[in-house]
């Protein structure tokens, strides 16, 4: 194995993407709307395609704008169909995001001959190619994707640090948030915009299919380990970054053991994230399989069974 500077850029891009995804991802998981992340990551496609067709360039700002608009539309349409059509939220999401995704594919396909936007790149990402497309930043050549992921990560970090209290309140008890004057609708749509924008940044790294793994898996892993939300966010970022590193390392080493060339990094990133989850699920203190086997819950002797597993009645 040889590690060249391009490998470091690939890992850095992947790590920044994964961390940018993990932050809003934690709140998606906590609000039991993980699949909303999947829906939005697919549904932003027509927004991207339209922005691309209108401006004719892959300039990031218009792409992000298009994605943000369609991201909010996805959330709005889902809510309308749920309420007016009297169908379950999952079904409503299925209707909205497949329709929008298909529309996006059609738009890209029909424009693909004329312009340089590759459907398979949108679907699966092309993180291996990111070091080739560079911009100059303070005199250094930096891959554009790295810069974009970094900006989105800092943006997400800034918003979540500033509105930590508000996001936590509305995720835990949206009714109370509304009665206290913190509009849970506003926070909901802000989160949806964050997810949409993050998804676009992650497209180039991991593609629209695997981005869901970056949104959900590090957050779910972190939640196995701690009961403190701040720590959950931090750990989720760590797990995301580690899966980027392990994923790329795996992609360039593992196949050679079996006599193959290297494999797709984004696929290995998601696989690594899954592996990390598996390991934590087995060895986590208190909640892990091993801990449960040995302790048989003796560490919580005074827990009455009632009320402990109170499930939320409905999520938005």
């Amino acid at each position: 194995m040889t590690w060249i500077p391009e490998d470091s850029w690939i890992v850095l891009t992947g790590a920044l993407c994964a961390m940018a995804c993990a932050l809003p991802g934690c709140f998606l998981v906590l609000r039991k709307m993980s699949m909303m992340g999947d829906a939005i990551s697919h549904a932003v496609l027509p927004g991207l395609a339209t922005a691309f067709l209108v401006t004719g360039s892959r300039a990031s700002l218009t792409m992000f704008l298009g994605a943000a608009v369609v991201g909010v539309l996805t959330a709005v349409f889902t809510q309308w169909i749920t309420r007016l059509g009297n169908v379950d939220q999952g079904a409503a999401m299925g209707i909205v995001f497949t329709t929008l995704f298909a529309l996006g594919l059609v738009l890209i396909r029909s424009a693909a001959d004329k312009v340089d936007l590759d459907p398979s790149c949108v679907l699966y990402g092309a993180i291996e190619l990111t070091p080739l497309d560079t911009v100059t930043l303070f005199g250094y050549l930096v891959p554009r994707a790295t810069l974009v992921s970094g900006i989105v990560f800092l943006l997400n970090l800034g918003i979540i640090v500033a509105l930590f209290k508000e996001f936590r309140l509305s995720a835990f008890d949206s009714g109370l948030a509304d009665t206290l004057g913190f509009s849970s609708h506003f926070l909901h749509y802000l989160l949806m915009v964050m997810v949409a924008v993050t998804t676009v940044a992650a497209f180039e790294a991991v593609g629209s299919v695997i981005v869901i793994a970056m949104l959900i898996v590090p957050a779910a892993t972190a939640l196995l380990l701690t009961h403190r939300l701040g720590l959950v966010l931090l750990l989720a970022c760590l797990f995301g970054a580690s899966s980027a590193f392990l994923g790329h390392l795996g992609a360039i080493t593992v196949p050679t053991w079996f006599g193959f060339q290297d494999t797709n990094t984004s696929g290995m990133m998601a696989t690594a994230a899954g592996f990390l989850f598996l390991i934590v699920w087995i060895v986590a203190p208190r909640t892990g399989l091993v801990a449960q086997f040995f302790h048989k819950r003796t560490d919580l002797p005074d827990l009455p069974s009632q009320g402990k597993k109170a499930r939320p009645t409905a999520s938005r």
Partner: protein
Amino acid sequence: MNRIFKKMSPAGDAAVENLSDHPAGHPLSVHDLTVAYHRKPVLWDVDLDIPDGKLVGIVGPNGAGKSTLLKACLELIPRTSGEVAIYGEPYKNQRHLVGYVPQRESVDWDFPVSALDVVAMGTYRKLGWLKRVGKKERDLARHALEQVGIGDLADRQISQLSGGQQQRVFLARALAQDAQLYFMDEPFAAVDAATEQAIVKLLQELNSQGKTCLVVHHDLATVAKYFDWVILLNMRVVASGPTAEIFTPENLEKTYGGQLNLLNQAVQALQSIGK
């Protein structure tokens, strides 16, 4: 309604000047309130006028619209028609006067927060957007937890609390809101005897400070003991008034209709109080 407003406002202004933390006017006036889900009415033509400083029990069979009434007053669900006035004004002007204790099942108790974090949420309205919880808010939250008798559990994650303790966390959070009018949705549901006593004590304490509490309640046997005002609800308001006058077998029969089993319990409860 307009009549009430006119009668209230001059007195209200005077009282606000005299006693700024206690607003004048009736805590809750509901006029012609109708709420429907998918065009099926859940509440129909509700009129209520709750006087100041009462402990109010809201009683009725399952599906009578008790929780819906609270949520409609708090604008958590859309009203089909009608008006609600909190101390003589629309709710959006009076948020700071209202505390809400939702049903315990309405939230996910596996959520990664401590008991203290949840209680501190009661102070968020005063904090406003962007400001962080500081020492002052944490002290207030700790004090509220002590008031409901679980000060020692402040740092526990909420899934590690029993059902009764979780209910007390919700009450402590309402205390931290420091409101004048409290809406409580079934605080007595599935709690242990010690918690029930703690809640009753808390209600009486709030009452002695001149605060008004509207409590959705299921146990007919304790209505007369806990509440001095009662609302009998079954989609419409069957009766509303002082418990001694309103909580009668005839009214209960009207409220519970054919549900004889419940009705018998109620009659027995009344008889046992009579003795």
